[in-house]
């Protein structure tokens, strides 16, 4: 996958294999759908939770770019495409439903769960909603399919230039754990947040 327009959060996908698609759509197609205002309606996208998760991630990525890039900088070719390509790749991988994370119920007839894709979307959004943060790679370590199993959580994040990293990392950790605790039965025993990148707009690099 290669990124063609980092400032827009747009992607150009080459040599796409079925495994790289999200319920039958490439990220590029989903980005185009977003550009068209989600018109005409495509039921294949609208009825797919994985596609909806990817669209929401693309929207947040664009919002981040809009906030931290001025128009002049946005018009310039990105200096490092690998940064945004990695973010998009994480978004694509994490949108898939993945494993089923069980929700406890005493009735034996009940099989209740949240998809791993929905859980990772919760984590990503909890972080992204903090100003100046974009969540990157997310790892749920441990068997999330076993009720009560202790889980380690690793979250990587990019922060915008000028943000206070020592204060942001605990904020991300608190927001993520709060949402996981509210929405799931996961038992998170360790949550590590690593700031892996600082996003520097063109004007700061010059």
């Amino acid at each position, binding site marked *: 996958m290669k990124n063609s327009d980092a400032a827009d959060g747009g992607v150009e996908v080459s040599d796409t294999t079925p495994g790289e698609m999200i319920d039958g759509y490439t990220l590029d197609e989903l980005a185009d759908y977003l550009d068209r205002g989600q018109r005409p309606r495509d039921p294949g996208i609208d009825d797919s939770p994985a596609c909806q998760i990817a669209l929401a991630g693309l929207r947040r990525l664009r919002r981040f770019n809009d906030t931290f890039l001025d128009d002049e900088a946005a018009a310039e070719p990105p200096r490092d495409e690998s940064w945004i390509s990695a973010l998009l790749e994480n978004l694509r991988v994490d949108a898939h439903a993945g494993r089923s994370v069980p929700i406890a119920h005493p009735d034996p007839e*009940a099989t209740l769960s949240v998809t791993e894709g*929905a859980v990772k979307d919760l984590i990503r959004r909890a972080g992204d909603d903090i100003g100046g943060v974009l969540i990157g790679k997310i790892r749920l370590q441990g068997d999330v399919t076993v009720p009560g199993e202790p889980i380690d959580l690793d979250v990587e994040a990019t922060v915008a230039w000028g943000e206070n990293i020592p204060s942001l990392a605990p904020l991300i950790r608190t927001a993520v754990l709060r949402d996981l605790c509210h929405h799931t039965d996961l038992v998170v025993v360790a949550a590590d947040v690593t700031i892996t990148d600082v996003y520097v707009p063109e004007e700061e690099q010059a």
Partner: protein
Amino acid sequence: MTTSLMSDTLAELVGTIPGVMTLYSPEPVIARAAKVALATVLRSPATTDRIQVTDGPAGVHVSVHLGVSRTQSAAAVCRDVYEHISSAIRADGQDVDRIVVKVGRVS
């Protein structure tokens, strides 16, 4: 009650539960795509049950795939949906084989 009618009734019921935003098709993507393709060829609308109801070995088997609101606990909504469906089936005089409730998105 037929399984198709029960699917419609349960979909209506589940749609009224606080926190439920969307009912996704419980069918796999490939099955849905095949239905859409067939409907295109036949020039008829593609119809998919929003809640899958089948006959299981011990009674009615139900599968639901949900999108829920972020304002409510996804786990609590999931349990609520199960309770409502279970009560509705038993009120209809039928046994429950299994009720599968999966949250695919919290928005």
